[in-house]
C-alpha cells in the first residue's frame, strides 16, 4: 500500500473526503450567509474533538468524558495571545494599569501574571495550543493507564477533571477572566479577525486543518498501529504478552486526541472571538462524545457529520424549546448507544452491505476447517 492510499484510506476513503470537501468548501459557503457559515465553522472546531474521540474511544476503546479540557486549554492558549494583543497600552489607557487585559484591571491586578508573559509570542502560543493539552494528557494518561485504570473509572476521573478545570478557571477571575471568560478579542498580528473576509479565511483554514487531521489519523490507522489497536480492543492481555507495553499506546493516542482537541479549541476562539469555562466543563465534554457517537465512533468522517448534525439540531431546537434541549440530547445519546452503536456511519455501512449482497451472487462458504481435518486423518 503506498503512502497516498494510506493517507486517503483507499478508493472509498478518497470518495468520502471528496464528498466532505464538496459540502464544506463549496456547497455550504455558496448557500449560507457569513453568519451561518461562521456557525458551521464553530461546529467544525468541535469536530476536531470528535475526530480525536474516534481514535481514542472508537479505535482504542478508551472513553474520555473530559475532552472539553483539551479543547478549552487550546482555546485559552489562543485567547490569551489575542487578549494580550487587544490590550495594548493605547487602547487600555483608561484603566488604572494600562497594558494589561481589562478583566485583570477590574480585579485590581497591577502587573501581568508570569503565566501570561510567554503568550505575548505567537510561535510560543501556536506550540502551546498543541503541547499544553498533550502534556496534560500525558500526565493524566501515564498516571492512569500504567496503573491499568480503564473503562468506567477512566471516564469518571476525566469527567471530574473537566469539572475541576472549569471550576478552577471560574474561580480565578483575575487570572482567567472567570465565568465571563476571555472576551473582546480583535486582531491576530494586526489582522482583524472580526471582518467578513477574515471569517471566510478562518472557515476555510478550519476545513483544511480538519481534513488534514482526518488524513493523519487514517495514515496512522492504516499502518501497524491500526492493527495493534484492533488487537488491543479484542485481547488486550494477548497484546501485552506479545511484548507490547499497552499503556504506552493508550497514552500516545490520548495525547494525540488531546492535541487535536487543542487545535479545535484555538480555531473556535479565532472564529467565535471568545472562550469561557462553560466550553471546558462536563456538559461540553459530554456533548462532544455525543457528536462522535452520532456520527459513528469508528468513522473519522462520520464524527465530522455528527458534530455538524447535532449542533445544527441544537441551534434549531434550542431556539424553539430551550429548556428541553438537554433532555433531548440525553435521549439521543442513550438511543444511539443502545440501538446504533456505530452511529450514522454504521447505519450507512449496513445499507451498503445489504445493497451489495443483493447485487452479488452469494459467497461460497469458507471451507478451510473440514479440509485440514481430512488431511489430518489421512
Amino acid at each position, binding site marked *: 500500500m503506498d503512502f497516498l492510499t494510506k493517507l486517503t484510506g483507499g478508493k472509498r476513503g478518497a470518495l468520502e473526503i471528496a464528498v466532505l470537501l464538496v459540502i464544506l468548501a463549496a456547497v455550504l459557503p455558496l448557500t449560507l450567509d457569513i453568519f451561518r457559515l461562521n456557525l458551521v465553522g464553530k461546529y467544525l472546531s468541535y469536530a476536531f474533538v470528535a475526530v480525536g474521540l474516534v481514535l481514542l474511544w472508537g479505535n482504542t476503546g478508551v472513553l474520555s468524558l473530559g475532552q472539553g479540557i483539551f479543547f478549552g486549554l487550546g482555546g485559552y492558549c489562543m485567547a490569551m495571545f489575542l487578549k494580550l494583543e487587544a490590550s495594548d497600552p493605547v487602547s487600555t489607557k483608561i484603566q488604572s494599569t494600562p497594558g494589561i487585559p481589562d478583566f485583570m484591571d477590574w480585579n485590581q491586578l497591577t502587573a501581568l501574571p508570569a503565566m501570561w508573559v510567554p503568550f505575548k509570542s505567537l510561535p510560543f502560543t501556536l506550540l502551546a495550543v498543541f503541547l499544553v493539552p498533550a502534556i496534560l494528557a500525558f500526565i493524566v494518561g501515564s498516571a492512569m493507564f500504567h496503573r491499568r485504570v480503564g473503562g468506567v473509572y477512566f471516564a469518571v476521573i476525566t469527567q471530574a477533571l473537566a469539572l475541576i478545570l472549569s471550576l478552577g478557571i471560574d474561580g480565578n477571575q483575575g487570572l482567567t477572566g472567570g465565568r465571563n471568560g476571555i472576551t473582546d478579542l480583535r486582531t491576530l498580528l494586526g489582522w482583524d479577525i472580526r471582518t467578513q473576509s477574515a471569517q471566510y479565511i478562518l472557515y476555510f483554514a478550519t476545513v483544511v486543518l480538519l481534513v488534514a487531521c482526518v488524513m493523519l489519523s487514517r495514515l496512522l490507522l492504516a499502518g*501497524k498501529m491500526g492493527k495493534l489497536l484492533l488487537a488491543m480492543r479484542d485481547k488486550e492481555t494477548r497484546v501485552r504478552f506479545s511484548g507490547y507495553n499497552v499503556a504506552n499506546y493508550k497514552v500516545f493516542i490520548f495525547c494525540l486526541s488531546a492535541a487535536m482537541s487543542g487545535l479545535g479549541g484555538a480555531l473556535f476562539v479565532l472564529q467565535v472571538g471568545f472562550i469561557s469555562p462553560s466550553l471546558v466543563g462536563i456538559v461540553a465534554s459530554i456533548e462532544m462524545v455525543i457528536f462522535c457517537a452520532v456520527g459513528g465512533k469508528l468513522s473519522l468522517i462520520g464524527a465530522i457529520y455528527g458534530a455538524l448534525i447535532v449542533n445544527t439540531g441544537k441551534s434549531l431546537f434550542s431556539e424553539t424549546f430551550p429548556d428541553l434541549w438537554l433532555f433531548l440530547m440525553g435521549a439521543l445519546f442513550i438511543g444511539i448507544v443502545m440501538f446504533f452503536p456505530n452511529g450514522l456511519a454504521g447505519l450507512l455501512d449496513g445499507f451498503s452491505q445489504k445493497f451489495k449482497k443483493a447485487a452479488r451472487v452469494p459467497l461460497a462458504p469458507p471451507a478451510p476447517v473440514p479440509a*485440514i481435518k481430512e488431511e489430518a486423518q489421512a
Partner: protein
Amino acid sequence: MASNTNYLLAVEELTVSFDGFKAIDNLSLYVDRNELRVIIGPNGAGKTTLLDLICGKTRATSGSISFKNRNILGMQEHRIVRAGIGRKFQTPSVYENLSVAENLEISYPSGRGIFGCIAFRQTPEMRERIHSVASTVHLFEHLQTSAAILSHGQKQWLEIGMLLMQEPELLMLDEPVAGMSPSERERTATLLREIAKNRSLIVIEHDMEFVKRIAHKVTVLHLGKLLAEGSMESIQNNPEVQHVYLGH
C-alpha cells in the same frame, strides 16, 4: 536470594498467597535448556497460577524466579516477554478481527515501541518468518483467512505460532490440546516435540496419553506444593500421585 544455576529457568521457594490461601506454597522448580516439561495435577493444584507468576501476570508473595540467571520477579509483563518467555493461554487467545497473517505479524518482535510501530514497514525477512511459522503450525493455506473462522484446534495452533514468531527461549502452554480431536492431538504432539528441539517448553496438560507422548520430565503439583517429579513412568508408579488422583 536466587542461586546461580545453569538452568534456563529456576523457580525457588516461590509462594503466593491470596488472602491467606497459599495457591503456590514454597515451590522450587528447575527447567533445563531444550527440555519439555509437563506439569500435571488435580484441579486447584496451582498449575495455571505458576505460569501466571512466571510470566508476571500475578505477583509473588515471596521467593524468586530467575530466567537465564536474571531475576524476573516483579518485571513488567512485556519486559518478561522481551526477555524470552512466551505464554499461551488456556482458551485460545487470538485476534479474531485480524487475518492469520496479521495475527502473526503483530507477534513479530519488531516495532514494539510507539515510534517503532509508526515507522514499521513489512520486511522480506518478516514475511519469510510468517510463512515458515505458518507452515510449522499447519496454517500456511489459511494465511489470509480471518482468525475468527478457524476451528478451535487451528486457533490453538495459531496462538502457538504467534509465540514462535517471538522466538522465545521458554514457551509456556496452558492445556494446548484441550478441545482438540484425536488427530489434531497427534499433530500437536509432533509439533511440540519439533518446537522443543531448540527451546524449552512448559506444558500444562490433563490428557495422560498426550503427556506420555511428549514429556521429557513430569512435575506433579498438589495444593500448591511439589508432589513428585521425574519421568512419566516413575510418576505413574508413584503411590502418592496415585492416591491424589484416585482419591482415598
